[in-house]
């Protein structure tokens, strides 16, 4: 048992005390550096364009084939249309700026700019035509002059740019032409409108004019209760309507309620006395 324990401990100690190889760390770091460099190289290769590895000969052949195809396509077109440069020198009707390009809501300033550009363009065309005429007179010997004048001529004015949203909003605001808003800008019309509004206000809140009873009407006897019922009037509504009407500057002052009650009482007494005498 002792021998086996010693053997076990010896083996374990041998495993434990194993000698580290000299320069192991350096070799490990060397290997790591090499591997990192390889990874970086692989990363750069990953970003490298694919066509870089294609031989230059294939690229040259491809370019030549494409150029040949372009030439073959261009030759019939050139024959069909003739000499394009001469045709332009012969004064083909110039392409004017498309009227539809002008915005319908553009201001007059924009239109004047367009007209000015048309005028300049017409002048330039006239100059070119006159130059061409001179060139024709000189038996076509001064084509270079024509070409030179063409190159020196003012270039076509660029078509007006479409209005931005902000410009469109400004135009819409400036050309709204609302009569009410325009009238509010005029001080006379504004004062007139204020006066009309004031008069309408006064007429709405003014007290209706009450008629003064005539002296003959005061002498007439007061109708009886049955007569009042027949007319559908109520004595209680009158003071209420009178109270509801506010006192205005132009209103006639209403009679005092105390005087009314005394008059009514005296008239009622007279009517009673008459009925008693007639009944007797």
């Amino acid at each position, binding site marked *: 048992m002792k021998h086996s324990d010693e053997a076990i401990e010896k*083996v374990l100690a041998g495993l*434990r005390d*194993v000698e580290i190889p000299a320069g192991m760390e350096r070799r490990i770091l060397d290997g790591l550096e090499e591997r990192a460099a390889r990874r970086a190289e692989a990363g750069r290769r990953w970003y490298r364009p694919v066509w870089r590895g294609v031989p230059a000969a294939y690229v040259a052949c491809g370019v030549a084939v494409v150029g040949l195809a372009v030439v073959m396509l261009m030759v019939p077109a050139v024959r069909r249309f003739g000499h394009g440069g001469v045709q332009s020198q012969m004064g083909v009707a110039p392409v004017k700026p498309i009227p539809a390009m002008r915005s319908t809501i553009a201001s007059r300033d924009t239109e004047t700019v367009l007209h000015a550009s048309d005028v300049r363009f017409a002048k330039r065309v006239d100059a070119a035509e006159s130059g061409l005429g001179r060139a024709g007179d000189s038996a076509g010997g001064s084509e270079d002059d024509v070409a030179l004048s063409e190159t020196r001529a003012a270039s076509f004015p660029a078509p007006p740019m479409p209005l931005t949203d902000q410009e469109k909003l400004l135009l819409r605001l400036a050309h709204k032409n609302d009569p009410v808003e325009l009238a509010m800008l005029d001080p006379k019309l504004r004062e007139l409108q204020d006066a009309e509004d004031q008069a309408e206000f006064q007429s709405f809140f003014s007290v209706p004019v009450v008629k003064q009873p005539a002296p003959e009407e005061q002498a007439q006897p007061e109708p009886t209760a049955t007569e009042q019922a027949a007319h559908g009037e109520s004595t209680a509504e009158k003071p209420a309507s009178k109270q509801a009407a506010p006192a205005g500057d132009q209103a006639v002052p209403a009679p005092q309620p105390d005087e009314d009650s005394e008059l009514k009482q005296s008239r009622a007494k007279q009517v009673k006395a008459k009925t008693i005498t007639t009944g007797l």
Partner: protein
Amino acid sequence: MASVEGFSLVLSSMESSRTEVDLATLVETYSSLLFRVVHSVVRSRAEAEDVVQDVFVRVLEHRRSLADVREMRVWLIRIAWNLALDRRRRIRPEQFDEGFAEGLVARDLPVDEALNEARRMKAVLREMERLPKAERHVLLLSVTEELGTADMAKVLGRSESAVRALLFRARTRLRERLEEGEKR
């Protein structure tokens, strides 16, 4: 840029300086420990060094997650342990046992005693290989002095008490088998 014994580790320009320092420092600090752990499994110095190299390659691949590693020591030992077990499946450690056992015998012994001693060492290594897997792993990990029971438990994914029990059973079983072999 970090330097280890005059060596400067140059990584790609895309690597951060912190990663460079960490990697060089890790190699300097843990390479010996990892070598012993791996050597206890493969029992070959060349293979052990190769496995340690692979460990730091793995670290280089996971350098972006180094900051998330809580226990760097245990993490590295676990990587080394798994790589060593994987290497052990490809090589036959028994082929290296003879040379290792002869290296354990004292050189001042007579030849016959040295042969007997070498034979005993080979018997111990052979019986260690015959131990159950869990017991063998605990016994091999216990070889490294720097590793305590808690570290072994974390590496093997077991509780500390289980590690202690496995270590006791491994020693007992190994002793019994060696005695039985001596009796025969």
